[in-house]
């Protein structure tokens, strides 16, 4: 059971990074490509092709790791899929369609230079982004259903009166997809912007990298500024749909009005209190219910066997929120410096630090979503332990994927670093200023 959980967590954690890149990076690429077609500038073409290679590598690894996930739903959680398949298969069938289009479009874009009308070719690149983005929405909607199961009646441990449309547009789909799609844009935007900031500081082709940085960071910073709002909406829905998850995220043990929000702190599950946190009185009530005096359900309303792991949820949540606010602040600074037209080196240095942080926040956010739903796989209806496969020796399955994915991650990073180094040399020669 722990092995199955670990395998799923690891596969998802691996895939989400590639998926986030695959569904946002094509937009940056299309933007650069647009500038090239409009202005005929050699630097824009170089940038388009540079980002195209990134898209190609990450898309391919994302596609195969996504295939693994579609099988793993059954390999790890067959008893869940037996019930959930008919109810929540719908977003997956649409996701399959969107992903198919993405695969076709990426083939056309990658190899279609000089074979198509330039603007048709440009459009295929945009289709890669749009279909990737849409397929991301479908998958997250399916995850939303696990948090807010709907579209069926649960009678004696089986689903009846299945309504797949209602299941797809479950109460959690909208806020979760909004939150995730923005997260993908901001984390990838910051990472790409950060890499170009690094190359700007190190290299000779300053204009080239500044231009690249502006494209990526405009997407990233805009998303980062919208994200606190999306996070707030998500928080309010979680308060209503999954009060135990919210309580675990916030380390809120006792139901109370005028509930405090803790910054930092370690929840002590034994003593049922928060340690070392800075309380902001009434803030949790406000965040959850728009009212400083509202009652916020605490963990005491649930039997302890239905508690999610409080410590993990709280820490992951703090990491996500901390990075999220830092990114929003940096996003604000970015637009300020963009208006002034000059980016000071210290700001670019900070951007370099943010290369991995968006990904960390995305991972932390998924930890909150998934760990916070435990012990349930279908919130309130089916426990994860009742869904797990009967196949013995799952721990070896986990080791296999651990080795495979760590190897693949290392290989991808290595390949990517080689690409960046080669590009840096080429670009410095061609576009130095």
């Amino acid at each position, binding site marked *: 059971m722990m092995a199955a959980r670990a395998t799923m967590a690891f596969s998802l954690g691996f895939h989400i990074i590639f998926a986030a890149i695959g569904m946002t990076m094509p937009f940056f690429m299309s933007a650069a490509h647009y500038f090239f077609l409009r202005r005929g500038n050699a630097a824009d073409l170089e940038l388009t092709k540079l980002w195209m290679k990134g898209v*190609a590598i990450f898309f391919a690894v994302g596609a195969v790791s996504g295939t693994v996930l579609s099988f793993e739903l059954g390999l790890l959680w067959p008893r869940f899929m037996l019930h959930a398949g008919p109810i929540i298969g719908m977003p997956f069938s649409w996701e399959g369609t969107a992903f198919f289009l993405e695969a076709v479009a990426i083939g056309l874009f990658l190899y279609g230079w000089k074979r198509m009308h330039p603007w048709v070719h440009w459009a295929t690149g945009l289709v890669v982004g749009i279909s990737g983005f849409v397929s991301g929405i479908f998958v997250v909607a399916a995850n939303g259903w696990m948090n807010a199961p709907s579209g069926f009646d649960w009678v004696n441990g089986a689903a009846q009166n*299945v309504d797949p449309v209602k299941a797809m547009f479950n109460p959690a789909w909208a806020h979760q997809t909004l939150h995730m799609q923005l997260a993908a844009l901001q984390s990838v935007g910051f990472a790409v912007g950060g890499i170009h900031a690094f190359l700007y500081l190190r290299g000779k082709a300053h204009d080239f990298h500044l231009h690249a940085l502006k494209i990526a960071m405009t997407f990233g910073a805009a998303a980062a500024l919208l994200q606190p709002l999306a996070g707030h909406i998500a928080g309010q829905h979680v308060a209503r749909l999954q009060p135990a998850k919210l309580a675990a995220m916030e380390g809120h043990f006792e139901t109370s009005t005028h509930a405090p929000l803790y910054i930092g702190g370690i929840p002590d599950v034994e003593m049922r209190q928060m340690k070392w946190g800075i309380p902001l009185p009434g803030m949790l009530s406000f965040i959850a219910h728009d009212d400083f005096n509202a009652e916020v359900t605490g963990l005491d309303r649930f039997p302890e066997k239905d508690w999610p792991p409080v410590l993990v949820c709280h820490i992951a949540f703090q990491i996500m929120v901390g990075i999220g606010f830092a990114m929003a602040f940096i996003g604000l600074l970015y637009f300020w410096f963009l208006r002034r037209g000059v980016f000071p080196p210290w700001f670019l240095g900070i951007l370099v630090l943010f290369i991995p942080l968006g990904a960390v926040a995305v991972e932390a956010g998924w930890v909150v979503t998934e760990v916070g739903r435990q012990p349930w796989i279908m919130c309130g209806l089916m426990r994860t332990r009742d869904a797990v496969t009967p196949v013995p020796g799952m721990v070896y399955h986990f080791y296999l994927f651990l080795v495979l994915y760590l190897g693949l991650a290392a290989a991808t990073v290595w390949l990517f670093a080689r690409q960046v180094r080669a590009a840096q040399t080429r670009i410095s020669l061609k576009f130095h200023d």
Partner: protein
Amino acid sequence: MIEILIGFIGASLWLYILLGGIDYGAGILELLPAGALREPRKQVINQAMGPVWEANHMWLILIVVILFMGFPGIFTTLMISLHLPMLALLLGIVIRGAAFTFRHYDAIQAPTSQRVYTLLFGASSLWTAFWLGIIAASLNRGTIDLETRSAWEAYILPWCGLYPVAVGLFIICIFVFLAAVYLIGETEDAALRQHFTRHAMLLNWCVVFSGGGVFLASLAERQSLASAFVRNPATLGVMVLASSLFAALWRFIRAGRIRLTRAVASGQVTLILLGWVLLYAPNAVLTRQKPLSFYDTASPPATLWQLVLALVIGSLFIFPSLIYLFRVFKMKP
């Protein structure tokens, strides 16, 4: 409605075997010696596969999605009983896709690293094709056991045996055969054409022999499969037709008629698939207890409707774009 879905599964399977099969076969071909033609062969395969392999791979995902949404009973049975072959398949798929992409996008095209990618790509293509065969064979072998308490009978015996291995080898031969036939038309280089032609003819024999091996293995396992195959007029007819096409195939290959060769070769493979499907339709999986048919395991009608809707609307987008993809890359510029 169930028939429409069976149609979609059948069509996806057919396209996956033909198009995906060429991609697998191309990878396996790269393991075979080619002397000085090694590098040009790699280039041709890169060009032929690069734009389309990801789209070709999607047919498999489509099958998985239709199964878990429309026929969850079949999906979960397979994922439990055939856990290990599925795992092996996934391992192959991941390494194969990564190796092929890395080979093309490595910024430094050094001979050593390229050799490693090619080896990984070839070996994982071989491995994945083999496990596809094992899984296909296990569907109708009748050894999946839903009630046993023994781990050996539940998770190993369903797929372990002579017959699955024979089918695995058969699939490998079919894929390489398809790839060799297909690649003849993808190059203008006479020596390389000769190389692919020779392989196509050789693999043709391999398909025949390994097909015979499947029958023998089935007899050796005392399955009713072989006798059922011979007794069923439909499957027998399909088999005879597939075999008689060999004469045509050899003439077209010799005459250098590329399109006709491709059509006949894919026709043969289609007939083999058809024979296999006819043998035990409408059951999807045979188990020790009872056959699982599409009809018994179907999801509620509301779900099936949504699935059909998604597939039909999806097809309106997918097929035109696929046709466009193949037109752009498969027409000589």
